[in-house]
């Protein structure tokens, strides 16, 4: 009996001694945490790149994983509002509740775009904090990474130096990447583009692309055939170079627009794992740029 009890105690104590258990709501923050934390953390995303981050269910497996997490990294800005609060509450884990060190919101570090001047659901699925898809601008990872390294150090002071060094190494590589990407994409500046959903506002902002139309009439509202024809008429004169959508968005509207306007459709990986090439943060943006440049 005593042996069993001791084994049980060892089993229960095990997670505490192991690497910091980090759970992220979306794959990009898992990739960032991995760059910074290396082997000091165990990190997993609860969603894949092929899932619409607005429409995740508070699945039993999520609650079980949140139960044991030391840190939850969320995007924030209401992206996960339909499911994360339930997961936090049902997990019975005090560490990951909002306001605790074990809850980290990336959007708090970002420069938010499209903050609505008025909040009215007649305008569709608007987010009071601004457009939550901050992950499509690579510059955000420096700022978020810095804050994340500090948070990891706070939660795991023993490895603080490793997190700072991990961040410094990442930031060095990332700055070099940014310079390279910005040079590559210099020719794209000012080009007109049509997007399906407001998923790439931050990418467009970074590259200086001009969004001439959105296929969704309102955020989160499916485009009707009549609306698509209207958009087509509207932008015909502006000769958009691409119509782009994220891999998790329905192909219907983009395909229709591409077929009827002759504008090349580009399906972007959106986040790590969105296609075979986007294996990590750097290859995500390599692939994103390659796709835009190839479809010119």
């Amino acid at each position, binding site marked *: 009996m005593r042996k069993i009890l001791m084994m049980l105690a060892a089993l*229960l104590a095990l*997670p505490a001694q192991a690497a910091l258990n980090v759970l992220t709501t979306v794959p990009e923050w898992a990739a960032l945490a991995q760059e910074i934390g290396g082997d000091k953390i165990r990190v997993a995303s609860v*969603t*894949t790149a*092929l*899932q*619409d981050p*607005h*429409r*995740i*269910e*508070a*699945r*039993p*497996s999520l*609650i*079980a*994983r949140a*139960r*044991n997490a030391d840190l939850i990294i969320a995007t924030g800005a*209401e992206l996960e*509002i*339909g*499911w*994360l*609060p*339930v997961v*936090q*509450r*049902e*997990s*019975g*884990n*005090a*560490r990951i*509740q*909002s*306001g*605790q060190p074990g809850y980290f919101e990336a959007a*708090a*570090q*970002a*420069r*938010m775009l499209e*903050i609505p001047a008025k909040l009215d*659901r007649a305008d*569709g*699925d608007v987010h009071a*904090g*601004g457009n939550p898809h901050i992950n499509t601008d690579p*510059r955000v990872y*420096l*700022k978020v990474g810095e804050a994340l390294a500090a948070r990891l150090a706070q939660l795991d002071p023993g490895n603080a130096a490793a997190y700072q060094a991990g961040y410094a190494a990442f930031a060095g590589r990332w*700055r070099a990447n940014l*310079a390279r990407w910005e040079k590559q994409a210099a020719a794209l500046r000012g080009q007109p583009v049509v997007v399906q959903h407001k998923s790439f506002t931050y990418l467009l902002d970074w590259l200086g692309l001009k969004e001439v139309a959105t296929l969704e009439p309102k955020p*989160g*509202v*499916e485009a009707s055939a009549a609306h698509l024809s209207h958009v087509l008429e509207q932008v015909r004169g502006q000769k958009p170079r691409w119509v782009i959508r994220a891999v*998790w968005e*329905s192909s219907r509207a983009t395909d229709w627009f591409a077929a009827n306007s002759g504008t090349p459709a580009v399906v972007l990986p959106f986040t790590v794992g969105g296609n075979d090439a986007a294996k990590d943060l750097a290859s995500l943006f390599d692939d994103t740029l390659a796709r835009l440049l190839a479809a010119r």
Partner: protein
Amino acid sequence: MNRISISMLAACAALASIPAVAADADLQALREEIAQMKKSYEQRINALEQRLADTTRQAESATVTAGQAQAAAQANRPAATASAFNPEISLILSGMYNNTSQDPRQDPTAAAGRERRIQGLLPAGGELNPEARAWNLGESELAISANIDPHFRGTFLAAISPANEIGVEEAHIQTIGLGNGLGVKAGRFFSGVGYANEQHPHAWDFSNAALPYQAFFGPQLGYDGVQLKWVAPTDLFVELGAEFGRARGFPANDGGRNKNGLMSGSAFAHVGGDVGVANSWRAGASFFASKPRGRTYDDVDSTNTLVTNAFSGKSNTTVLDFVWKWAPEGNARDGGFKFQSEWFRRHESGNLTYDTTAASLGTATDAFRATQTGLYAQGIWQFMPHWRAGYRYDQLSAANLSVGLVDNGTLTAADLPILQSFKPRRHTAMVDYSPSEFSRIRFQVARDQSRSGVNDNQVWVHYIMSLGAHGAHKF
């Protein structure tokens, strides 16, 4: 780095200025070598200086953008006013049009004016939608919730009935800071037994509750009490829970009881997980125990007199539940399938008192035992974005009854007509359209055979809309 290179160069230069002692050829070779070294070091110094300058410039620009971002981020923050602490408020609006081939307000097998009820078991007395023909307003649900402090969260939900009565559906506090997987809820709440019991009507996939819920919980089991829950620290989702308190409504009748103690209680276990990225499931087993005292119901006896009968004893209900959800790649936006099924078994034993008010053949009491099972199974298919179709099959078994009053000859079976053996059945199909996460319009048809010898064909056109805070739903 630079300083080291320079001093090395200086050393080289010093070396070069040493008076020649070796042969001229050797001297020439040495001079060339030194000149080459000098040249290569100069190049390296230039390269290093260039890199230093570049890095400084980059760092400066990074600081500038970071500073801008910081300023912008600060501008994003809402002003800190007292109203910023407003709780989350949401309101559910619901209304429907019903067509039914039978009068929903009246039981066609018995006395006029008596409410329709399911044949073959002691009536639960809960609502059996639809309430009336043609236009009906559904319940308007007003929900207010917020974190109270780092330790507690509070939830209040009032339902305003079409008859202008306000009912407190939920009013509870729950812990958020206990840790170790523990959670405590206290106040008025819906029990965690089964799967659908905790869901509010606006979250149901059909416009009315399944037959077993209507028959056994009339139609939802609520508590004024306390709930304890624990989530196990395992990768498989394992949740254990226990509840005690004054159970609200059928099959308990704790409402008017005056005693100390736990009153009714329930225990439940849920397990769940994922299969691959596209499938997730949850299964559970629950048990509810109560001791109703003088739980009354009306019936019409063999002399065609309306009498009041009462049950006192023990009532135990077991529920097994199972839910499976599938979505392509786990992306529920464009399509998916949900299967849901629950099985109920209730066992009641105690005494049945006939005609408590001595209005007909005189009051009489004897032993009573009843065992009954029920189940429903439903599938919901989202066949395109915003559109779903579903089918549900409900049934209750004929009760396994032992009625002492009939067995000992005091009464005949005709004196207790509601208990006459019957197997209620119902088929329901629906299609609904949800233009957004906040609005849903449902068309539902049902063939209801919950009353002996009567087929009721029912049609619903039902809207359910929510405004206000973006409520997160459970799995």
